[in-house]
């Protein structure tokens, strides 16, 4: 076992793709501009040269067709990785994902499964305005028959892909666009894979459970640092898997802290935060010393102007004040 390395999230995704393509000849990558362009976020730069056009497939702008083709190829014995540039474009493939990928196993009476991995970028923060700033993870997490994960750390970005490929069912990986430049440690050695079915406690605490995922983890950790200066000990839970939800970790934490603040970049109405809040109500109601607090995006399409985009999405000061409310300070 050698020491850990410090790399960017983008490089972690690229290494994970490269490893998967090397390990399993059934794996191939397809999507818009994944080849010559190197991926719209640069995650597949250099892969075309190593693996060739058959396995690094540039597609036309045809999200429904190439996502559906990924489902078909998975049925046919391959292990496709479909990259959809961003979650907003995935809406053009929603039919294939929801009506085919998620249903085939069940409606065939267990005869067929769809070992497909779909990766897509998500989230706001770069002033891309209303059509390119969505967090729609909850839409997918709503649907039985698929698994939804959100690697929030570089190590998870590096380690989740292979686990997802080994999974016999469709797995959607959400990569928050603001994370690609983030640097972080990946462990040394050969075993970089990580499980995709459980939450991780990123910081231990006793006063309040801060529950989040994806691009908001960094903000939540920063808020926890700030709260520690006020003597408030926040326990930070990174959900990692959005479907299924690791209910046990959430409930155990709330039983200990008696307070929960959920930070979710999705809009509040119908959000994952709403689902988690309901689970806490069902499973830990009598542990609560304060109503579950939610920090979500404002109910507005994400505006272009910088100050409005910041105001529309969860930020550290908003998280800190939610925790203070929960602590009755």
């Amino acid at each position: 076992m050698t020491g850990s390395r410090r790399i960017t999230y983008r490089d972690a995704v690229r290494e994970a793709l490269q490893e998967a393509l090397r390990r399993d000849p059934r794996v191939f990558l397809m999507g818009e501009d994944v080849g010559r362009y190197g991926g719209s976020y640069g995650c597949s730069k250099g892969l075309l040269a190593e693996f060739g056009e058959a396995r690094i497939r540039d597609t036309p702008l045809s999200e429904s067709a190439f996502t559906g083709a990924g489902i078909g190829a998975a049925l046919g014995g391959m292990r496709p990785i479909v990259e959809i540039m961003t979650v907003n474009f995935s809406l053009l493939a929603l039919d294939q994902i929801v009506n085919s990928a998620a249903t085939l196993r069940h409606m065939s009476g267990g005869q067929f499964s769809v070992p497909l991995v779909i990766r897509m970028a998500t989230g706001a923060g770069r002033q891309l305005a209303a059509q390119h700033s969505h967090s729609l993870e909850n839409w997918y997490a709503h649907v039985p028959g698929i698994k939804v994960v959100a690697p929030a750390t570089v190590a998870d970005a590096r380690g989740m892909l292979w686990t997802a490929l080994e999974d016999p069912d469709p797995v959607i990986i959400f990569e928050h666009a603001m994370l690609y430049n983030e640097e972080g440690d990946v462990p040394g050695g050969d075993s970089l894979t990580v499980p995709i079915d459980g939450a991780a406690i990123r910081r231990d605490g006793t006063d309040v459970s801060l529950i989040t995922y994806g691009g908001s983890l960094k903000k939540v950790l920063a808020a926890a640092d700030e709260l520690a200066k006020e003597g408030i000990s926040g326990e930070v839970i990174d959900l990692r898997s959005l479907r299924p939800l690791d209910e046990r970790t959430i409930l155990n934490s709330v039983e200990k802290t008696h307070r929960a603040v959920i930070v979710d970049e999705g809009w509040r109405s119908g959000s994952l935060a709403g689902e988690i809040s309901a689970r806490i109500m069902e499973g830990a109601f009598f542990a609560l010393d304060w109503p579950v607090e939610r920090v979500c995006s404002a109910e507005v399409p994400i505006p272009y102007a910088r100050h409005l985009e910041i105001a529309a999405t969860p930020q550290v000061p908003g998280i800190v004040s939610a925790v203070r409310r929960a602590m009755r300070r």
Partner: protein
Amino acid sequence: MSAPPDPRVHLDREHCLKLLRTMMLIRRFEERCAELYGEQKIRGFLHLYIGEEANAVGVMQALTPEDAIVATYREHGHALARGLPATEVMAEMYGKATGSSRGRGGSMHIFDATRRFYGGNAIVGGGLPLAVGLALADKLREKTPVTCCFFGEGAAAEGEFHESLNLAALWKLPVLFVCENNRYAMGTALERSESEPDFCRHAASYRIPAEAVDGMDVVAVEFAARRAAQAIRDGAGPQFLENRTYRFRAHSMFDAELYRDKAEVEAWKQRCPIKRFRSWLIETGVVHDNDVAALERDVEAEVEAAVAFAEQASWEPEADLTRDVLTTLTPGGRR
């Protein structure tokens, strides 16, 4: 309602100066945008139209104020050619409250209801069904405007392209489809994304009359657009133009252009629509060097005025964050 435009192109001095000036305005406006982007005054994605100016400028000549326009995320040129003030467009790029979309949209989402400019759409192909619907509304209300829908050739790979063409033809809707074929869907070359790269044949398969046009020649574009618009006004149903053009710059700002040759870009730059039209006008004596110099000064002043306007414009107060999500109903104010 104003009279429909004359389907013929009258290349008098005044008209030629207008075409040239509008193309120059778009060019200078966007060069300035690129600079301002580097200075972080403009953020988000910035897709420049540089090289493609003849298309928006030529097509707009065939449209009346009653006609509707649906554009893409690369729509600064269409907005300016349609007559949106450069000040408001620039303020929008800055995200200011006086921008054409109150700073909510930015570069990719310029809208103007008074000019029936139904905006930039950042979802590739997303504007086509919208244009079909606008035309359907006009038809149902027995009005005669044309809905002009601009889109890139990348959109032709989307299902929405095919579904929209079929519907428009089936229902004989007054849509002018303008495919701006700049040969690259982001970084994917035409021949790598289309099994049939001749878009007129796609249109023909839906029985839509189609014509391929030199999108680097503003007069050719105007001529084709006038003919197509007239056919629509005469009740012939949807028409299709494939404007063969080229973007001189990257897809967006952050693009290393690994997918195309510098030599190819250089070759297309020789066909710059502004240079070509200007040289032709000078050679034929329609305009003179000093006319061009005057236009340059004029355009520069307009762009600088737009930048000054955007610089001093105010930001929308954060308290107004959630405005314009739904229509605010006033009692009796809406049917």
